[in-house]
Each structure stands twice: as structure tokens, then as C-alpha cells.
């Protein structure tokens, strides 16, 4: 998580930390500690113009999705949004913002020298059961340098 400065929206904080602490999830404690230490920034994302908001509604986005999109569209210092959500990925790309899947984010950290290949491979293997077939394997093969 420390491979790049991270920013989350207030909604994501509520979903991960507030709901996570209430449900007894250990990762919620870790994320909260990182937020309190300033290693993860939490930002409010103001509404976009009325036509833009209407488009987000037409995509069927929920409030949390809209907040992520608003932040990506408005924050000039956000380089890319990490998501494994296909629709959100497409919406962000169509808004002209960079989006990447978690395996791509891990690969970029290796490419930038911020993460060792072996650690990246372990991380990818750990998230493999959660991702659709092909996503993790694609990154693993690239890290191996065979494709």
C-alpha cells in the first residue's frame, strides 16, 4: 500500500473503515491506522455539473461509484484510479481519466522500482481467487518477462 501516495473518497472510507470496524474486519483497523497516520488521504469529491451528474446516473452508478468518478475527474494530482470494477473502469476511461486494475497497479509499482518482483508475485497470487480468470495470470507472465 505504500508504493504510491493513496487518496480515497469519504464514501470509500465509510465502506472500508466504518463498516469494516463495525463488522470486525482486521484490514479495517489497518486502513484506519494508515488514514490517521496520513499515509492514506481522504477527500470529499464535490458534485460535477448537472449534465455530467445526469450521465453518471444514466450509467447506473451508485453514490460510492460517483464519488470515485468525481474525485478522478476533479483532482489533478490523481494519476490513476485503481478498481477491479469493469463498468467503473470504462466510465473513468471515457471521462478521460486513467484507470487500472489492481494487478496493473502492482506491475507499475515493480516497473517504478517501488516493489520487488517476488513481493509483487506473492501479492498477485494472494488476490488471484478474488479476480476473474486471466487478470492475475496476465500480470504474472509479464513479470516473468515471457510476454
Amino acid at each position, binding site marked *: 500500500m505504500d508504493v504510491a501516495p493513496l487518496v480515497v473518497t469519504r464514501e470509500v472510507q465509510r465502506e472500508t473503515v466504518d463498516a*469494516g470496524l463495525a463488522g470486525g474486519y482486521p484490514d479495517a483497523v489497518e486502513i484506519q491506522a494508515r488514514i490517521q497516520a496520513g499515509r492514506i488521504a481522504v477527500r470529499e469529491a464535490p458534485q460535477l455539473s448537472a449534465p455530467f451528474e445526469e450521465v453518471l446516473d444514466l450509467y447506473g452508478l*451508485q453514490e*460510492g*461509484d460517483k464519488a470515485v468518478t468525481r474525485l478522478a475527474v476533479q483532482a489533478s494530482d490523481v494519476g490513476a484510479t485503481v478498481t477491479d*470494477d*469493469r463498468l*467503473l473502469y470504462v466510465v473513468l476511461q471515457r471521462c478521460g481519466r486513467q484507470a487500472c486494475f489492481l494487478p496493473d497497479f502492482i506491475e507499475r509499482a515493480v516497473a517504478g522500482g517501488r516493489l520487488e518482483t517476488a513481493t509483487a508475485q506473492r501479492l498477485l497470487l494472494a488476490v488471484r*481467487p478474488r479476480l476473474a480468470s486471466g487478470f492475475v495470470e496476465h500480470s504474472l507472465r509479464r513479470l516473468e518477462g515471457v510476454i
Partner: protein
Amino acid sequence: MAVTVHTVVDDRIAKYVNRVKAHQYATEATVLRELVERGYDQILRHLHDRYQRGELTFRTVAEELGLSVRELYDLLEQKGLPT
């Protein structure tokens, strides 16, 4: 957590429940619970398919099922479905 629900079912469903009950020596409640579970599972898989195809966001699937994002992650993990 389980909740008790009292409901009226259609005659066709009652006939099916009676038939399965007799065949499997199960209680009416067990057969009905299985039916509801299978229906719920079908709805979940349908929404999950749509999510995988990029038609719905993960949060929309959670909303449709009346779950939080955390609860949906847990449910999909339990079912061995990718997120």
C-alpha cells in the same frame, strides 16, 4: 442470522413441496428453505454475470441484494465467485 417469514405460496409450489417432502422425508420448511435458497442463488449469479460483463458496478449488485459492499465481498468469496 435467520429470520422467520410467514407467507402464502401458489398451489403449484405447494404441490411441488408436498412431492419433494414425501420423496425426501423432509419437512415442509426444509423444502421451502431450499427453494428460496436456490432462487436467491440464481438472482445472485445473474447479477454477478452482469457485473462481470461490465453492465453493473459492484456497488449496484450490493444495493440490489440489500447488502453492504463488505457483505457482498464475503458472499462472493463464500460462493467462490470472482469480484
